[in-house]
């Protein structure tokens, strides 16, 4: 029964995204556009024995996946709440967690689309050096690792309007991406930024993604698991005090 309901919830979300794709257009176009620009400039170089284009599939890919999974469910739930639709869902027999899980799940195909577009772009430059298996691992890690960010997005969406949610989530994502080795290597930034990065889940997800191409990464998994617990608590508290 719940599987059938989950299916229709995901389907409704996907229909919504497909029929009004404007918001998603920017969350896909921006990271992929950035990626194409930088990979055309630096893709042929190499860092730590890895081609820059390959590295950028992991780092820019992390940013791309987060821009979809952090923003879409959060802004979506803020919109549902503002229109009174979340309240309608709450008085229905459908468990709210199922509706929220569907929102997050519906963002994942678009996250896969971002990764695919980046991998194809890097491949076209001729400087992508990664096996299909490692790219699949990379995609799997990023999709799973995006969970705490999706929960954070929901926590914001339960409290703020859609526009404010978009502002807050961008204010979290953009600076975090800048200092987390997602856009530019930490080596070219001041040392203190590298120390700040250690405390940011964006950094650990980026490093875990890189680890799928060059090995390691267990410590980042532990940090992300901890972050997932914290984000789940934040989302639960925010939901308990949701502004209807």
């Amino acid at each position, binding site marked *: 029964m719940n599987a059938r*309901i989950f299916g229709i919830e995901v389907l409704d979300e996907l*229909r*919504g995204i497909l*029929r009004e794709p404007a918001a998603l257009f920017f969350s896909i176009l921006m990271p992929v556009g950035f990626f194409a620009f930088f990979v055309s400039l630096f893709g042929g170089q190499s860092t730590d024995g890895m081609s820059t284009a390959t590295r950028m599939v992991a780092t820019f890919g992390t940013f791309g996946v987060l821009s979809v999974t952090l923003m879409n469910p959060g802004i979506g739930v803020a919109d549902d709440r503002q*229109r*009174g*639709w979340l309240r*309608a869902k709450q008085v229905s027999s*459908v468990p709210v967690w199922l509706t929220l899980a569907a929102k997050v799940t519906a963002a994942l195909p678009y996250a896969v689309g971002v990764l695919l577009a980046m991998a194809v772009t890097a491949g076209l430059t001729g400087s992508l050096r990664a096996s299909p298996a490692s790219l699949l691992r990379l995609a799997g890690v990023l999709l799973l690792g995006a969970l705490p960010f999706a929960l954070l997005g929901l926590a914001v969406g339960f409290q703020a309007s859609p526009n404010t949610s978009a502002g807050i989530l961008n204010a979290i994502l953009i600076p975090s991406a800048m200092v987390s080795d997602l856009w530019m290597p930490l080596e070219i930034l001041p040392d203190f930024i590298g120390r700040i990065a250690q405390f940011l889940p964006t950094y650990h997800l980026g490093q875990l993604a890189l680890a799928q191409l060059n090995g390691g990464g267990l410590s980042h998994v532990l940090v992300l698991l901890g972050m997932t617990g914290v984000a789940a608590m934040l989302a639960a508290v925010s939901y308990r005090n949701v502004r209807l």
Partner: protein
Amino acid sequence: MNTMVLQVRSVRHRYGHTLALDGVDLTVEAGECVALLGPNGAGKTTLVNVAVGLLPVQEGQVRIAGGDPRKAATRRRLGVVQQSVGLPRTLTVGELVGGAAIRAGVPRGASGPILAEVGLTKLAGRRARRLSGGQQQRLQLGMALVADPELLILDEPTVGLDISARRNFWRTLTRRRERGTGVLLTTHMIEEAATVADRVVVLHSGRVVAADRPDALTARLPDRTVIARTQLDPARLRNLPGVVSISVDGTFIRLGTRTPEALLRVLLAEDRTVSDLRVQGAGLEEAVMSLMNEATQEVAA
């Protein structure tokens, strides 16, 4: 067999130090329509939120068709039509009603007869954002009815509907009530409540101050209403002997009084141009206003 589809017993609810509901009792029988009336801040929204399980029952008991309203199984027996819900813009009428069917655990095919019942069959492929206000209300009703609920809770369901849409809405509801669906209606449209409700419950400051048939409530009131066109200004009318209330209804003045004969004599003496004069018994609106005035005076005392 339990025919009570909603039972609210001795419910109290506080927001911090503010007592929003103070020992409220309310029942809705199968097939019955109960209108919940009261001024803003009376506790209607809190009561509905407690009844549908959006707020916890802090004290007292709430049962929908004998079940706990916070349980999914109970909620399948409940349909809710809310005021001004923004339905998902991108989904079609057919998708929304079909989805509601699946969510309620009934076959998607159940949506066809429901669309016909609420008069939306021809609009099944239209997206919700392209519907008029009346069509959206009918769609919400269809989504609420698809699970064949035992209790329907309607929050200001006909606000913004024209007369024809309103009549269609109530006609659909009447058919459902004949099949045993109970209805709890919150509304500010008191005369509409008088027409459609079997019983009226008046809430004031979190307490039920009256619960009775609409005609029984109006019969309690000795007041009569003198209606006329007059050139006297409202301030002067208010000071006429025997006037207990005054309201302006278009070009007419409505004067509430318990001594209509004496008032008529004074009115005709004061204004020889008085026209379209008539006296009628108090309506539900006057009865509810009177009950609320009494309740306000009690609270003040």
